[in-house]
């Protein structure tokens, strides 16, 4: 029994090392695409199992998070809370935890099998991401919307004081931009030249009660960020890895120029599973058995299910 546990531990370590290896090699678009397909499988399998959770936004952000973690962020091995000497990421729209967990696991932060504990009692994979259960990869709790950008700004300023030249990334939802705290943060970052921060907005045009236009129109998000003094980068194809790469490259090039940077990522909610696409209805609904099977059919296993 004990030997078995040790074996499993060794295997987990091996997986971690392999995953780190993957991340350390410059990833090809094809590799990223394969990982994305696997991440999609992870997402729908996770939410299906517990019949709860948020597949829509998760699927829409899969390419972005995969590209960020596997191709763009300069990350250390292992995990510490301070994240000095590396790029760090904050997820403000915590409900898309499935994609976050999948990408973290597949980037080596914790064993991929742990994805099967999502939203179960005593799991480290809470409904919304948290530091409370000590899951590596998570630096703040989110779930109550609107708080992540402020935290990211604080972390970015800590990096400056610490003389750490790395970048802080943050992701928010578009509906989430209705929260006033974001605009406090947006105003602050511009007034204080927080230029080691690259925020992104998941501009999928959907929230819980319908499209953002029908719920509470955001108008031009670009015009708003520009009026607030930010550098805006638009990624029209937010589910296309090449476009994301270009957008993130642009963003990194603009960093350090006294202005905070935001990427407006036009994504499709539910991307990659045809019947989930383009509708708010899959914001927070889990697929049933048939829907899961169909979703998996549309996204064949690439790197191995957990």
């Amino acid at each position, binding site marked *: 029994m004990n030997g078995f546990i040790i074996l499993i531990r060794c295997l987990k370590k091996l997986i971690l090392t392999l995953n780190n290896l993957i991340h350390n090699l410059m990833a090809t678009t094809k590799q990223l695409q394969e990982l994305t397909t696997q991440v999609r499988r992870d997402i729908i399998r996770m939410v299906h199992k517990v019949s709860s959770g948020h597949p829509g936004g998760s699927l829409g952000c899969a390419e972005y998070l995969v590209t960020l973690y596997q191709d763009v962020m300069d990350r250390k091995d292992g995990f510490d809370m301070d994240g000095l000497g590396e790029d760090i990421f904050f997820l403000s729209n915590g409900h898309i935890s499935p994609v976050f967990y999948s990408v973290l696991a597949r980037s080596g932060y914790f064993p991929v099998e742990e994805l099967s504990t999502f*939203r179960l*009692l005593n799991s480290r994979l809470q409904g*919304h991401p948290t530091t409370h259960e000590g899951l590596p990869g998570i630096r703040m709790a989110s*779930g*109550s919307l609107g708080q992540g950008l402020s935290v990211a700004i604080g972390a970015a300023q800590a990096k400056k004081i610490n003389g750490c030249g790395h970048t802080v990334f943050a992701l928010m939802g578009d*509906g*989430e931009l*209705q929260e006033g705290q974001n605009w406090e943060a947006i105003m602050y970052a511009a007034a204080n030249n927080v230029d080691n921060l690259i925020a992104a907005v998941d501009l999928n045009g959907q929230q819980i*009660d319908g499209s953002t236009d029908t719920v*509470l129109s955001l108008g031009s998000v670009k015009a708003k960020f520009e009026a607030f003094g930010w550098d805006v980068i638009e990624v029209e194809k937010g589910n296309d890895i090449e476009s994301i790469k270009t957008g993130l490259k642009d963003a990194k090039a603009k960093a350090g120029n006294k202005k905070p940077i935001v990427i407006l990522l036009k994504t499709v909610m539910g991307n990659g599973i045809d019947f989930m696409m383009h509708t708010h209805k899959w914001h927070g609904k889990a697929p049933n058995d048939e829907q899961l099977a169909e979703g998996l059919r549309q996204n064949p296993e690439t790197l191995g299910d957990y």
Partner: protein
Amino acid sequence: MKTYENTGSKDTRSGFGAGLTELGQTNENVVALCADLIGSLKMDDFKANHPERFFQAGIAEANMIGMAAGLTIGGKIPFTGTFANFSTGRVYDQIRQSVAYSGKNVKICASHAGLTLGEDGATHQILEDIGLMKMLPGMTVINTCDYNQTKAATIAIADYNGPVYLRFGRPKVPNFTPADQKFEIGKALNLTEGGDVTIVATGHLVWEALEAAKTLNEQGISAEVIDIHTIKPLDAKAIINSVAKTKCIVTAEEHNHLGGLGESVARVLAQHSPTPQEFVATNDTFGESGTPAQLMEKYGLNANAIVNACLKVLKRK
């Protein structure tokens, strides 16, 4: 011992929805606001029937509370709807100044209170909202126990002039109070008579208290179960009268033991007749993901926990 029958489990939030639908037809001054959670709050019907009296605030709870306060100016009776966390902690200062201190006739209606919202986890499971709202001067705080009572309370608060916090939940729980009840704000309901121990319960824990009373009864202990749907103003008299008889008390709430119903009861008794008390409540901890039943079990918020608390407090008489 008087017993109660579950006439079919339903979620208390649906009781709210049904009450609001009825108010839509009977009281044209009632308006409703929601912060991107119409389905979760069961406000769909009201919205469909009275689009001109429905306001979608988007994910902007502070603005929603302010707008609700403003809508009272002009005679409206606004009902705001979102999750309990975003109904209270998120907007405490807005409620404090624009509603409570300004004395506005706003009904803050909060679903998904407590642990039983389940899988979403701690960020959504507020266990402090009763305490938050009870500390505001002039605020009425109600936590209903089943579908029927929630519906009746929803209708009753529209007739009461002043700020109200109405707390209800997500899971299906036994529905056992009368469908035709009239809800009296501030009036505790004695559900069972008993001479050995008083159980004062609120919200989802009222049914658990009844279950506990049954178990205790089998052990020859007679428990007086009080449904204290209104935490503020607290029916101190009902509590004092009961403990005059039983000499010990258990409070039961889906809330932190700090700041909630339990402490209100402890204060009243410390001032009038100090009495051994046990607290069925969460033990100053955040919640977590899990099914409602798992969480109630793990965090000690079910009939079993109430039975144990009663046995403990009985020894302390």
